[in-house]
């Protein structure tokens, strides 16, 4: 009779007791033995161990087994708990790191409050003053921030004016019509010249007749003038400079 399947610890325990009890038994990898908790007769049904079936298994009492199971449970539970704690710890550390970085980006509280209160002209003095009172933990970080005057963050109050560091743009250029026009042109381009349209080079197109003539001629444009454009331009510039230098030396 095949016993009921037990949990992992029962499996392990019975396997151990098997090993202990049967001694020199060939072990098959991956084969799991099942038996009832206290049923020695189950072993008799296993065909491979008929030769070792003459020895009776070890008798284990229920209480002992239960205690053993509990200890095993406790061990597993503690392992899980430790794992969870580890993750929690990791998470906490990362949160702290982020908070730290965020705090580092802003100017110190004192500076912000002073900026809100102080008139615009004295802002450089305020930043210098704030340099002195720094948070002890972020000392070096604050210092580097404070030395850059005039750079105000987005959350600065509305009453202050900044000088320098602004850009005037022509509103007309920033309007949407340019974007619409570009989309429209892209639509046209993809449908007339995009994938699926069967376009070819001008050279290939016009050279077809030359190919088909009774007297075959060369292609219409067999020199691609766009090759080596950069090299040609550099050579031209060099020539000009050299000539100019030559003229100078002559004069």
């Amino acid at each position: 009779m095949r016993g009921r399947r037990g949990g992992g610890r029962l499996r392990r325990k019975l396997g151990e007791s098997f090993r202990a009890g049967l001694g020199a038994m060939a072990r098959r990898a991956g084969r799991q033995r099942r038996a009832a908790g206290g049923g020695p007769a189950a072993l008799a049904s296993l065909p491979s161990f008929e030769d070792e079936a003459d020895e009776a298994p070890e008798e284990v009492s229920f209480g002992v087994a239960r205690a053993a199971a509990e200890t095993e449970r406790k061990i597993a539970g503690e392992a899980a708990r430790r794992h969870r704690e580890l993750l929690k710890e990791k998470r906490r550390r990362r949160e702290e790191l982020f908070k730290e970085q965020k705090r580092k980006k802003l100017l110190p509280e004192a500076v912000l409050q002073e900026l809100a209160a102080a008139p615009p002209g004295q802002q450089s003095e305020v930043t210098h003053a704030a340099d002195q009172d720094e948070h002890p933990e972020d000392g070096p970080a604050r210092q580097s921030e404070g030395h850059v005057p005039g750079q105000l963050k987005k959350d600065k109050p509305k009453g202050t004016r900044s000088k320098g560091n602004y850009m005037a743009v022509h509103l007309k250029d920033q309007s949407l019509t340019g974007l619409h026009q570009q989309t429209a042109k892209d639509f046209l381009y993809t449908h007339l010249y995009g994938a699926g349209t069967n376009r070819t080079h001008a050279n290939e197109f016009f050279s077809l007749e030359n190919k088909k003539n009774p007297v075959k001629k060369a292609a219409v444009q067999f020199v691609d003038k766009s090759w080596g454009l950069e090299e040609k331009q550099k050579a031209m510039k060099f020539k000009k400079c050299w000539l100019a230098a030559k003229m100078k030396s002559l004069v």
Partner: protein
Amino acid sequence: MGEFEVHRVRFFSYVPAGVRCLAYHRRTDRLALARTDGAVEVYNFAANYFQEKAIPGHEARTVEALCWAAGDRLFGAGLGGDISEYDLERLRVKRSVDGFGGPIWSMAANAGGTRLAIGCEDGSVKLFHVVPDGVQFERNLDRQQGRVLCLSWHPSETHIAAGSVDLLRVLDVGSGRTVQRIMVNYHVQKSKKRECVVWSVAFLSSGTVVSSDSFGRLQFWDWERGTLLESHTVSTSAVLSLAVSEKEDSIVVGTSAGATYQFQLLPVKMGSQDKHWVRTKPFQHHTHDVRAVAHSPTALISGGLDAQLVIRPLMEKMQKKGYEAVLRKFTFPHRRLVSSARKARLLLFQFSQHLELWKLGSTDESGKDGEVLPVCRAPEHLVQLKSKGPEHIYCSCVSPCGSWIAYSTASRFHLYRAQYEGDGVSIKKVANVPKLLLPAYQLQCSADSGSLFVASDQGSVHVLQLLEPGGCKHLHTLRPPSGTLEAVYLLASSADGNWLAAASGDWEIHIYSLKRFKHHCTVPMYSCAVTALAIHPVTNNLVIAYSDQQLFEFSIPEKQYTAWSRTVQNSGLHRAWLERDSPITHIAFNPKNPSHILLHDVYMFCVLDKSLPLPDDSASLMNQSALKQLPETARKRQLHAFKICKKFQPLLFADLLDENCLVMVERPIMDIKTQLPPPIQQKKFGT
């Protein structure tokens, strides 16, 4: 006749912009044409297809639709989102109104010319009233997702057909609602399922909607039931444009592969009432996409991205076989883009946004007729002047001594002083140019480089004096005695500095005396447009070339036509001369031979010898090659006044530099075509 050393110039890298829209105006027999760079031109079909008006483009302006409305007013709309009205007298944009729908893809005027419908990027169709001082918003029709690429009014003005991507819908104008939606993408195999773009649509009075799409099909739909009546697969590439004749029995379509086809409504069997649309005539006039077609009562008109305008008269509509039924192809503009400084041997090339000044090369050797001489000094690109701002250049000129360069855009006039030291040139801008009403339509420098003539609107010409170290002063403004609204577009000044001739848009030529700054006389009115003017340096005769290829010579001191001119008119010009395709754009004279006139058009260069007899129709006009083979005595019998050379083609400019030197600026068509956007591949057997 003489021997000339010919400077054959091919370094003018002019690339015309492709044709984007066409609009035919039946009443005045004119065609409006818009190019991809925003330029708008008007061709007068009655005046031998002369390009009588040209409005230069603008960097930010693209024209996607052009239409005539309210009589003779021309409206255009483009991806900038504005509806612009063009002032054809002052050659500029009169006013523009924002459509408030994003980029405008299409515009159509109703049959009466009183309303305009525009199709916008946001999917809405908007109606505008055409009022005497512009356009006024009327209302929005039903808006749907997807850009409206094409529009067409029903002739009864009750419905509008609008085509977008994958969809064709019919809107009721009265209620503004969509009354029918037709999915165009159904009848395609599953493997080829991609977006079907409806490029153009037309609404016939029988209730049939004709649509052309990017799968190469022309389809006929019944709009009330939403069903497909007929479908014709015209090509494998997209069908980009279609136009219906006024009688609605003929449709012309243009494809992406450069082919145009005509469809006609014909009875299937002789005498039966049942008519079907049949594809009748295929044409392959273009190499690149045909983005615009138009249908006049007697001709099929197509314009492609290869910058060619092709007018194909229909034989069945022609009364007789003659020159009227000939295919007309226009690639080059009908005005001069090159100015020459004769004494300094310089050429000024006018592009749309910059100018190039070149010095001609020279050769030491001489040779016989037809020989190519080696160049000892290559032509040199001296200066490139970029025009500031997005506007394109209207006109430019260089003085005969080469020291003054002037050009004008729609809102600015620039004058530069050039100084030549050795091989180099330095350009200095002349500040404080006089405030003139801009733009200048034509600029001409006097023969002694002391004055600059600026052609302006309302028939007036400004005379500016060019002062030596680098300054400019406004001397006088010459005005015609009878006011005119049109602008002056051609100028000619005499070599002695006494006379100035100006031709304006109403085809009148006025002659002014520069000594007394007053109007001298008016040349008798002729029924055709003036294409070229020049005043003879010795006799002060004004030679005029008209767009119907007639030539006149008017004597300025005597205020009447010369005897030679009367002889020409009495005997008539040779038939082959009158049947030329392109107008004469420049006239020059030979100081050594006062009886010679040098003329050129795009395909020929002619030296007209007034002392020789005129040919009659039985003689051959182009007999130069035949004459060369005859002995001296036989030649004398067959000589006639017109000595035509067709060796240099296509010519943009030809001028006489000095006694023995000619310059010919050619622009081979293949050089233009290799710079155009890529064409559709054509599969040819065996390649």
